[in-house]
């Protein structure tokens, strides 16, 4: 009997958040398809996925990073910087593929700085990654100034937008394909690799992980570098989709990423969380925003709804990850 109570408790703790998210999604979808006939269509779903693609790509890696008990507030700036750098290089004669490669490597460099300060030197991630947030953003503006303006658009080769607007197999937008690939990669890492197992162990108990011989510094550092790489790739993707690179994009993206992750049930202190939960979290935010625009609701209410979702998610998270306090 006692075991049964425990089992129910355990299930509540691990799976309720996902169930609640799926329920919310279903309710929203039914409501929206009744309210606006244009909701239930392939193109609309494509739009929603396009909107959350960048968040989900970065959050795939950032989710496992948060499972280790760490987070990265610099992703928005790294994205903006990478977009600008890619456009700058392309505009100044570097072949597009080569520019992508260079941009990815530089993006990993930003992740390397975070890895060094947080994982190796042990500086609090709030401070260290906010440092990179400011520095990378500053360099984004600086590179744009080198180019002579506030943003980079004219003078870009006409092929510049081909990458971002590419349709894989003629139907699937590349951003969505990359999102699925990032999700699949991290689902695989989470479920089937040592790195995944160790990430949970580090988040659950850093000291015990060290004494168990786990290379804690290496794993945290690796995740920081991957997060930055994904932010860099997203920057290339986004810039190339729009055909314009602006240094002030993706401000606050770090919060969108963290909201998706927390909404998905990952604890900020680490040890608990899942890639699938994160995806559900991102979709709830994405469909909510899509629905509000489809319904023609002014953005003030969208902002309020976003805040309500955020606080609600934190309350859920609190409730289910700390059963003792509930």
């Amino acid at each position, binding site marked *: 009997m006692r075991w049964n109570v425990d089992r129910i408790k355990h299930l509540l703790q691990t799976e309720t958040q996902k169930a609640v998210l799926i329920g919310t999604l279903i309710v929203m979808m039914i409501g929206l398809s009744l309210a606006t006939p244009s909701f239930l269509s392939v193109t609309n779903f494509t739009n929603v996925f396009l909107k959350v693609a960048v968040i989900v790509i970065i959050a795939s890696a950032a989710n496992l990073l948060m499972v280790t008990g760490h987070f990265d507030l610099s992703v928005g700036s790294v994205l903006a910087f990478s977009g600008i750098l890619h456009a700058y290089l392309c505009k100044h004669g570097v072949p597009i593929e080569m520019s992508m490669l260079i941009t990815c490597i530089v993006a990993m460099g930003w992740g390397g700085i975070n890895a060094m300060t947080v994982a190796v030197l042990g500086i609090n991630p709030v401070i260290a990654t906010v440092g990179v947030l400011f520095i990378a953003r500053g360099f984004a503006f600086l590179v744009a100034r080198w180019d002579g303006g506030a943003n980079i658009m004219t003078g870009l080769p006409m092929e510049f937008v081909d990458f971002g607007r590419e349709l894989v197999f003629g139907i699937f937008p590349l951003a969505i394909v990359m999102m699925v690939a990032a999700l699949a990669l991290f689902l695989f890492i989470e479920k089937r690799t040592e790195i995944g197992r160790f990430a949970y162990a580090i988040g659950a*108990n850093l000291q015990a992980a060290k004494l*168990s011989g786990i290379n804690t510094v290496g794993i945290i550092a690796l995740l920081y570098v991957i997060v930055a790489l994904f932010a860099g790739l997203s920057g290339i993707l986004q810039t190339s989709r729009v055909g314009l690179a602006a240094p002030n994009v993706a401000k606050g993206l770090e919060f969108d990423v963290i909201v998706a992750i927390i909404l998905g049930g990952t604890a900020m202190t680490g*040890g608990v969380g899942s890639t699938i939960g994160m995806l559900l979290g991102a979709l709830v935010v994405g469909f909510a925003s899509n629905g509000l625009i489809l319904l023609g609701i002014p953005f003030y209410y969208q902002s309020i709804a976003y805040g309500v979702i955020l606080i609600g998610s934190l309350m859920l998270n609190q409730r289910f990850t700390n059963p003792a306090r509930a």
Partner: protein
Amino acid sequence: MDGSNILEIRDVGKAFPGVVALKGVSFDIKRNTVHCIVGENGAGKSTFIKILTGVHERSSGEITLDGKPFAPTRVRDAMAAGISVLYQELNVVDELTIAGNLTLGQEAHSFGFPKQDTAILEKAAGILASFDESISMDTLVGSLSVAQKQVVEITKALCSDCAVLVMDEPTASLSLGETRKLFDTVARLKASGVTIIFISHKLDEIFENGDYITIFRDGEMIETRSLEGLERSDLVRMMLGKVVVNDYVPSPAIQTETALEVRNATTRKLRNVSFDLQKGEILGFYGLVGAGKTEVCEILYGHPCAGEIRVKGKATRLDDVRKSLKAGLALVPEERREAGIFGLLGIRQNIPLMNMANVKSHGLVRRAEENRLADHYIDALSIAARDREHQVSLLSGGNQQKVVIAKCLNRDSDIILMDEPTRGVDVGAKQEIHDIIRELAGQGKSIIVFTSELQEVVQLCDRIALMYDGALRQIVQNGPDLDTDHIMKLVAGEEIEA
């Protein structure tokens, strides 16, 4: 020393929810003496001090201070009555000068503005100079040594007319020279009429400074007497209580093959520690708190030391956890919650973490292998859990410890270090864990048990290494003729004839 009592403690008890920390103790503290209080961890001495200084309220009993009833409910009450504490963690503000520190919290105010009370400052300067003439009142406290900061704290206590000064492990973070200075200070304080309650794990310090001693054990006052004529071993015997020598079964598979040799290991705390560990043997390290057991464990698992360590005959550096693991050592750490278990994870995820190779094939983690491994250990160590997914933080202490041991066993190391393997587990689980350790030795593993329970070493270990003050004094062979008096003499630091 007029022989009158400054403090009279009568039937003072303290109960916390679910546990009685102090079981009605009674004793006197004589005016103008250095009164030592000793006892192993959990004996009740900290609880007593906290009652005396107003941190805790007592559950029962009476205390009189200078003949008047004394019942502090706040630290300020105790200070006002003349009882101050010199804590291990010093309570000074590094950013202020000595003068600033000394007047902190007792600034006189005129019309709401703090004003420097010159009378207090003069008095303080006089006291300070009597301890250490080299420091001026304008020195920034942050620039002082730990011993000098202690002097500042003592000065502060004396400024508020303290009659009783409690010193809680005052030498814990002092160098040898600083310790000497502190003892001079203690002598001066006594000369100036202050009564000192001196708490220390170091018996040398107690015999050097103390006049009287009170021994605590298991929440009870065992004895209060003059230190004069007290044998160290008698003191230790009173601290430890009766040791039952029974149950010991020699490990069946001890071989002459040496698994581990340590020669002249020296660190800040350890002095020339040398020992051998045989294959299939259970070696126990025993000593009082602070004797250096933990440090011996550390040099085998991730901490550097001078000297030589040989694993299976090969000289090896063990200054990194991963090097130790690679060399074939594994640790069951002392602090289970902080360093052993992964509380948020299930048993299944905990067990393979020290050795993922056992659950991988073709480089990938296999759930089926994890399940098999978890089921195996749940069965082999009889871990009481709902199933293999049971979150480890929700298990009982004994079962958590079994999970930690399982994680360590999965590493299949030849040498297993166990730091306090049965601390905080119930009696049944303790027996089971002892059986597991014996069985491992039977399989030819070499095991070192570090424990602060004498009962545990004499029950479990084939040989017992006795530590005192960072030195390994002797390794004694366990057996029917084991002399526990001899053990107590050694861990008490008494000289013994060769």
